[in-house]
């Protein structure tokens, strides 16, 4: 007798709670769903990879601009005839030792730091580092304040100054936001390699892309065998892009 009574009480209470929960689902739905999906997707990608690049400066030819051209083609970066504000995600840098007069040239792009200053300063959390080490900008929430551009020691970030039309499907860009090298995240997610690395492999191979955390990858073996450096390693940003022969 008591048992059945208890049961009915419990079940009616449960019915009430289910009703309340149902209402909560309806009203909270937009935000809640967003989180739920994002969480599962993150769990699928939790394998510890860190994508990185190795640039062999001794192999980089002074007159060659292939990596820059490939990047511009890949992302539809076109000049508007105003060089100071034209987009530039990767650039060729020439350094000369004033003592010996030895000159070197190599590409510099977003260094995809493990501890990126751009992420530290971003007021809206638009600047972020993915699980796999790629530093990106969520331009849906970027307000174009340009703090990241000032914070970056590598001058890797750009501001979009012009109205843009006919964007690539995989690379939406718009006026008033910050942008930078994405390490061709759309190619990497599909199992490919970045456009600049692909372009560089046509002549002398100066660029190498791979998983820094996988000891069997070509890039990890090279880094283990040769003396490589990170630009401005004194800042302890731990860039994912390393240089050989600097």
């Amino acid at each position, binding site marked *: 007798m008591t048992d059945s009574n208890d049961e009915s009480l419990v079940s009616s209470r449960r019915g009430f709670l289910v009703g309340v929960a149902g209402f909560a689902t309806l009203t909270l739905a*937009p935000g809640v769903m967003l989180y739920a999906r994002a969480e599962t997707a993150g769990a699928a990608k939790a394998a510890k990879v860190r994508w990185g690049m190795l640039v062999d400066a001794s192999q980089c030819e002074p007159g060659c601009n292939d990596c820059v051209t490939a990047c511009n083609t890949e992302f539809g970066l076109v000049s508007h005839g105003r060089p100071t504000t034209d987009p530039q995600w990767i650039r060729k840098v020439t350094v000369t030792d004033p003592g010996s007069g030895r000159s070197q040239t190599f590409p510099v792009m977003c260094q995809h730091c493990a501890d990126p200053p751009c992420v530290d300063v971003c007021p809206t959390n638009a600047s972020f580092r993915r699980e796999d080490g790629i530093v990106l900008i969520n331009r849906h929430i970027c307000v174009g304040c340009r703090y990241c551009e000032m914070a970056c020691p590598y001058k890797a970030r750009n501001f979009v100054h012009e109205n843009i039309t006919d964007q690539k499907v995989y690379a939406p860009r718009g006026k008033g936001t910050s942008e930078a090298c994405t390490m061709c995240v759309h190619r990497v997610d599909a199992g490919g390699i970045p456009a600049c690395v692909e372009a560089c492999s046509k002549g002398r191979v100066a660029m190498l892309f791979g998983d820094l955390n996988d000891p069997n990858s070509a890039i990890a073996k090279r880094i283990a065998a040769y003396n490589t450096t990170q630009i401005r390693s004194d800042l302890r940003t731990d860039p994912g892009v390393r240089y050989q022969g600097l």
Partner: protein
Amino acid sequence: MFYIAASILILGLLARVAVWVKRRREIQPRRGDSQGAFGVVLDLVLFRGKFFDDRVSWIFSILFHYGLMCIVLRHLRYAIEPEWVGPLWRLVIIAQPVGLYGGLLLIAGVAGFWARRLLAPSVRATSTLGDHAMLALLLAIPVVGYFNAWVHTDLIAVKQFFLGLVSSKWQPLPADPLLLLHLWLAAALMMALPFSKLLHLGGVFEPLPEGGASRSNLRRIARWGVAALVGVTLLVPAATGALQVAADGWTQTQPDFAKLARAHKAADPTVMIRNHPNFLMNYRAVVVYHGVRQEGDNIEKCVTCHVVKGADGQPVGFENPKHFCRDCHNKAAVSIDCFECHNSNPTAAPKTTSIDPRQRLAVNTADVAEGSAAR
């Protein structure tokens, strides 16, 4: 339902104004506290009389009335088609954020009035149940309205419903419980308004208060009538809603977005019409943060299938008013900035080309529309 509500509102208003005008003729001279045209403007715009009379009430009054103005401007989008007003439609678009935040002033004003009614002893002593009921109604309408804005409904269908009421070409109303509740409460307010003291809108016609026992008795009866009316209008949907929930549980949950992306061509168009913002926001988080990229996850894919061809046979971009997304968003005055960054043109030859989902909806619901209950 709305016809009844509107006729009660209009007839009630007319009757009351007629009574006032008649009384005013009997009681001369007219009220003299406004000095000239400027004084009338001060009274009407800044509620000068109230300012010197009751400062607290004046603050809530300003909040309420200007909040109400903002929110009414926001609702203009349901009453006007962009083609009717031409470039003035810009103003309706600007009114959207104004109304969205201005509505909070309205809620603050009503909440303040109610707090005053409960906390100030002198006001509390003279409050009737009708006063509280009206405040409850005034608070419930915007609160439910905000929930509506949050969970989304099919704005174009709502607009077609109301324009259909005016032109007596009846259209079905989306069967979202929150939307129906909002409209039900609004109708209740329309019916209660002529009998309540909220109707000081026509106050310029009102004679000076002369007091008198018979009149205050009449007023008390009217207030109780209002309380009963509001009570019934609040209880009926609540009771039916509770019964419905008890009967079949709450069935309105979010769809599975992945399934929706693959199968929305075959699914009920209303599901996608209602959920596409959540759908896009969800995928943008998944793609940007977790790199889960699948065919059809991007907005470019949407505009590739939902292509609209211009006069020259070429797909039109977002700058063209006929663009698939822009057409509806413009009619509903909902801003859309996706295409400041994303390409609004098809980026590939679509495998299938979609027809306008509203056309499909019209085919599906043509027979249902005849006997729809919600009017």
